[in-house]
């Protein structure tokens, strides 16, 4: 499903050059649930950004469902992000001026779908994460755990094949973290969604099928 070959990512400024990823070779099968672990600054989020087309690798190739994705025009990259990938962030990234259902609908705005169709898909996604009763609430009226569930609903509303979760439980207490993990595992098992999750929590990582460890931008296992 996901294939990285000799991927390198260098961030350059006028003064310094930072090697964020180096020589990454990674194969993730369809339906696999993989954790990425490593200390801060080891390149975990960069790896996720490269897989999710949020960032271009400096070297190497990235294939998603057999298709080379780097170097594609902006419009094609946007289409792949919209249709193949769902993102979950540590800080939720909900738009505070939109209510729950409007937040969940956002990915569908970039597809040619009728309003009622968007609404129906968004409601289904919210039901999947157990928040169907909170559709008119604004993010500020929800707890951290509920906000992350909204973010998961937004990530799955377009039925992507890959979910990229960047420390999805990092801002939550352990109980809420468990709840989020349960939802992710359910999605992996029921929908066969491929999940790549960055985490610092070894306990959660152990629940996944495989752990990829990074250190100073290099794969260490």
């Amino acid at each position, binding site marked *: 499903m996901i294939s990285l070959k000799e991927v390198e990512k260098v961030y350059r400024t006028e003064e310094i050059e930072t090697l964020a990823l180096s020589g990454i070779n990674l194969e993730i099968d369809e339906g696999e649930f993989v954790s990425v672990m490593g200390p801060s600054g080891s390149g975990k989020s960069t790896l996720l950004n490269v897989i999710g087309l*949020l960032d271009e690798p400096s070297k190497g190739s990235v294939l998603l469902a057999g298709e080379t994705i780097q170097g594609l025009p902006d419009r094609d*990259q*946007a289409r792949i992000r919209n249709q193949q990938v769902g993102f979950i962030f540590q800080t939720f990234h909900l738009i505070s001026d939109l209510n729950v259902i409007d937040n969940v609908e*956002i990915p569908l705005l970039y597809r040619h779908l009728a309003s009622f169709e968007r609404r129906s898909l968004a409601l289904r996604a919210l039901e999947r994460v157990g928040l169907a009763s909170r559709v008119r609430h604004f993010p500020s009226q929800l707890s951290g755990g509920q906000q992350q569930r909204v973010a998961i609903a937004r990530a799955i509303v377009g039925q992507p094949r890959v979910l990229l979760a960047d420390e999805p439980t990092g801002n939550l207490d352990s109980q809420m973290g468990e709840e989020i993990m349960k939802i992710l595992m359910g999605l992996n098992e029921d929908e066969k969604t491929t999940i790549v999750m960055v985490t610092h929590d070894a306990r959660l990582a152990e629940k996944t099928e495989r752990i990829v460890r990074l250190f100073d931008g290099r794969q260490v296992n």
Partner: protein
Amino acid sequence: MIKHVFTLVWNRRRTNALIVAEVLISFLVLCAVLTLSAHFLTNYLRPLGFDYQNVWNVEVSTGLPWSSIGQSSSMNTTRQLIEIAKGFPEVKAAAGILASPFGSSTWTNNVDNLSTSVMYDGATDDLPQVLGLELIQGRWFDRTDDAQNWAPVIINASLRDKLFGDRDPLGKTLIKSSEDHRLEGRVIGVVDDFRFKGELRTPFDLYFSRLRLDDTLSFSQPDLLVRVQPGTPAEFEERLMAGLNAAAPGWSFNIRPLGQMRRAQFTEMLTPLGIVALIAGFLLLMVGFGLLGVLWQNVTRRTSEIGLRRALGAHARSVYFQIVAEILVVTTIGLVLGTLIAIQFPLLGIVDDIAMTTYLIGLLASVGLIYSLTAACGLYPGWLASRVGPAAALHHE
């Protein structure tokens, strides 16, 4: 996407209220300036109906008490003054008139059953030679009118159309009435127009009465209009003044070329408009800079949101479109409110003088200008937003 943009704008209504207020005020001021400009321009482009070049106005002041004005003796003197003026080789023609072109005095009367009052002027038989007035029907006043037992009247084309439509107006009776008297006149001629109040004023219905100068006038002392030969030097004014003073000792005269009076009237009418236009210009500039600043700040503040949208599938152009669409929606709200206020003026009859078409032109031009300004102000921040890389934007603080 449009619905989504409306939702966002509505949910951010407090933030957007300032922009809406700016748009609303600028629109109203701009609308006033553009409507008045269109009104003046439309009026200016219409035929004036007379030739003011080389015509001098002699304002006559008898110094007599109000009750003595218009007595036979005064009229005899006035007739002599016209003859004296005609005697100068520099003068081609001279006439008496009650309300001079570009002057401040006007007279109105009720005519027949017309709901609005009608302008009227009194003039002697020589006025067409002085002002180059051309009749489109009938004739001007002349000595044959002395023998008539009815009052001859000359009307302009718009009054003819209102009173008689397609019928021939010549010989038709026209009833003039004011608070204290009612007079019958008979139409003997039609002029295309005589816009003696100047080019910038709205055209009006008008009729002329005949000034005989051997009769008792009840209301006003006429002024003189003198057509001089082209190239007559300004020094002639002194000699003309001396001639008039000699014929009417104790009277005073103020001689001014009609061209000069016209320029003074232009200044008087256009200066306030110029001031308002200047204010509108500054206001637009302020709104432009304000909008640019607000939108720029808005884009910076929303960098993270823009990154999120890019991550969720928005391509650069759709981010660009969204930023510009948002400002256009906010502008539309301001313009709708502004239009609702602006259309009250013609509906309540506050701007009756201005034609509805002119008002609509001013309104639409203002809408177009405000849209162009706000769109232009949204383009650069929109472009900036579209260039933000998704990964960097998501981590923007």
